[in-house]
């Protein structure tokens, strides 16, 4: 698989490690009433789709940036690559 890094261009997926579903960006509010339940779901439950999947990849052997890669789990085709920081800010996180 080739990941088209937004800053560095096409890179071999071997340079990266994958963490998993990009929903891991949406860390729950630890002060919420139901924080324990929210953290359980956040940490353990997955949509696990057969098709498009947004996931977090870390460029360990490169510039050490976190990326959000949209990839088909049916064909392994990489459809879209974004900097995780941009995605997190767009989702209302402060960094």
């Amino acid at each position: 698989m080739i990941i088209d890094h937004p800053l560095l261009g096409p890179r071999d997926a071997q340079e990266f490690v994958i963490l998993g579903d990009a929903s891991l960006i949406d860390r729950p509010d630890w002060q919420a009433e139901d924080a324990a339940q929210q953290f359980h779901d956040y940490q353990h439950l997955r949509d696990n789709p057969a098709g498009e999947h947004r996931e977090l990849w870390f460029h360990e052997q490169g510039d050490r940036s976190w990326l959000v890669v949209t990839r088909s789990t049916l064909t392994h085709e990489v459809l879209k690559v974004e900097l995780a920081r941009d995605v997190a800010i767009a989702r209302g996180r402060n960094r």
Partner: protein
Amino acid sequence: MKTGAWIGHSAVDAMRYSVLQILKEGLTGNRGWKPVWREPEPKRRYDVIVVGGGGHGLATAYYLATVHGLTDVAVLEKGWLGSGNVGRNTTIVRSNYLLPGNEPFYELSMKLWEGLEQEFNYNAMVSQRGIVNLYHSDAQRDAAARRANAMILAGADGVLLDREALEKKCPYLDYDNERFPIKGGLWQPRGGTVRHDAVAWGYARGADRRGVDLIQNCEVTGFDIRNGVCHGVETPRGTIGADRVAVCVAGSSGKVMGYAGLRLPIESHVLQAFVTEGLKPAIPGVITYGAGHFYVSQSDKGGLVFGGDIDGYNSYAQRGNLPTLEDVCEGGMALMPMIGRARVLRIWGGLVDMSMDGSPFIDRTPVEGLLFNGGWNYGGFKATPASGYCYAHLIATGEPHPVATEMRLDRFERGGAIDEKGVGAQPNLH
């Protein structure tokens, strides 16, 4: 272990497969053999529907019929029986787990393997040729000793081999490797291999004969859920009703349970396997490397059957990529350099249902009448008999089998993870 009495089948088989019959068929072009199981049309409803005709689904149906007398049962399979991982795995069976939530379950499975061929009167080539997990440091030796003790406590067998004893079995390993010298291994003599397809076929035939409908090319595409109760399944061949629907689809768990609106502590990944050309006997049992992810056995035809890590990314593609092939082969070369002379003939991949702690689930779900069996990771073949046995128990009695009480979907909420490797909720590290 005897799980059910059924007198008469061996007599039928003796007539069907007698020496005389084989001679006669051999001389007349083998045109007289009859199919071993029926191809029934689905009925409108059943007591129990098992979704997924892999090893676990077929074993579940078999034990529902033999142990619990439930025969108004259908197994619905998307493709053909055994088209999933039961026919794609590297056939290793063992009960060398550490944790109390797992080990008694896997030891039950081992005992069921030991009696299986007599039980369902089918040659599954159960071969207890032993399995050794190598250790390379003092710390790993301590861990192996602890594991052996846990195994023995659960009624299994485990022997700590030092380098000398190991060298007698496997003289060709790279014992003096500078980085990871081999100091010994944990040997389970009762571990080994079983012919995977034959397991599916043996359970299928046994279930069919007792009246279970095995329905192939019948994909479940939804559930008939009303007011939180599951009344049946949707398929391209119509809605089929049932009192209890037992899902058992391994790598497709996330997709299928998604039809019921459930999110699972599971991710689907790809695991690859590799087979070389046939070679003279060299590998006595199963060898697993302790310093990297690599394991190898030798099939009866002589091919080296080996594998290693999952690729690591979510996948439903049933095929992997080359970097993993390279990584696995590097592990093989580090362990036994002679493997470099062998040529790989075949490579394939299967969908594995990786769970958040590396351990499986056999449980009810929040939807009444809908049950779930999955999360078998890369190691559910060895579990086939016990998984079917315990799932049938849960379906028939409504209570978990005593050896499967920890395999619950809510265990993370209760702090009850069964994490053999201790790596946390990171499926691609288990």
